């Protein structure tokens, strides 16, 4: 809806305020993911090859999260219905940042933030155990984006950061950020 898009426009402007490398707003689809992944790889492969693989993995998991679970749907370039949101990739002095932002229902946000809090409280070993446990469930019982977020925490080695901005009675805009160290 146009009104909602206008509502979070300022958040996006705020996110883009610093120097950023790559950003995108719209329906997430495979063409876009391929293009952004290629750009990220080109931008980081030479200077920080060890971080490149991690960035790529985090980027894919977080973007596919939007494609699957965003409450705002759009038509992708290959004519499929896909989640809409924003992806920002930033390079800072000590680390890289992958941000994603999308709309979600209040109930989904509660479940998501609870999930992130519990993931952030786990050690590396606990995360691996949890991932194995979740992966052994049937595809239908795996739950929304569970393993993807565990993987993001495991790969980045840093806690997942998030921010929830209420838009109206039913919807919020949720920002998830993962920090990947350069060395």
């Amino acid at each position, binding site marked *: 809806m146009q009104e909602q898009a206008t509502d979070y426009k300022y958040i996006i402007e705020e996110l883009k305020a610093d120097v950023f490398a790559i950003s995108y707003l719209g329906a997430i689809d495979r063409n876009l993911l391929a293009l952004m992944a290629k750009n990220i790889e080109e931008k980081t492969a030479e200077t920080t090859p060890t971080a490149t*693989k*991690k960035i790529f993995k985090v980027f894919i998991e977080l973007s596919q999260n939007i494609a699957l679970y965003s409450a705002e749907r759009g038509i992708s370039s290959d004519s499929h219905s896909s989640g809409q949101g924003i992806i920002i990739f930033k390079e800072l002095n000590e680390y890289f940042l992958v941000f994603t932002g999308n709309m979600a229902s209040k109930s989904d946000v509660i479940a998501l933030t609870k999930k992130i809090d519990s993931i952030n409280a786990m050690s590396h070993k606990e995360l*691996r155990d949890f991932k*194995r446990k979740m992966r052994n469930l049937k*595809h239908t019982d795996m739950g929304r984006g569970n393993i993807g977020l565990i993987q993001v925490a495991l790969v980045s080695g840093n806690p997942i950061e998030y921010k929830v901005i209420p838009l109206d009675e039913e919807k919020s805009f949720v920002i998830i950020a993962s920090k990947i160290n350069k060395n």
Partner: protein
Amino acid sequence: MENFYIEGSKGIYFIPTVNFNADTGVCELSGESYLEETIKFYTPLIQWLERYFEEVGKPLTFNFKLTYFNTSSSKCIVDILNLLKKYKDKGHDVTVNWYYDDSVEDIEDELEEVEDFMLETGLEINLIPMSKARDKESKDNKKNQGDK
């Protein structure tokens, strides 16, 4: 039984190359697997393996040569490994090899991932550095040329 082949793609679709050979019993999955519709892609692979176990029933070697894969693909890899484990537990000869790129500095994540696959499925997986596999391939080629 017919062989099964899918050409992989890195540009847009992130589809791995699938090369399952019913005559030799060597199955290979290589390249990148960052699909969104993972189950749709992997179901025919699993069905082919089930048919191989039923109709052919010979030894099987599974070579994983994946450079990138997402968590959704990793769930399907576990499904394949569980299937191979069942076949092995029935007394069949099953070898699983995981080739990893040892030219990159940070391979801990990948080795940890393979260790998790082993813990999760109870199946032994041989870790083979790609440089070693390339050396062997090069020696075999030279030997074959010498034989001619």
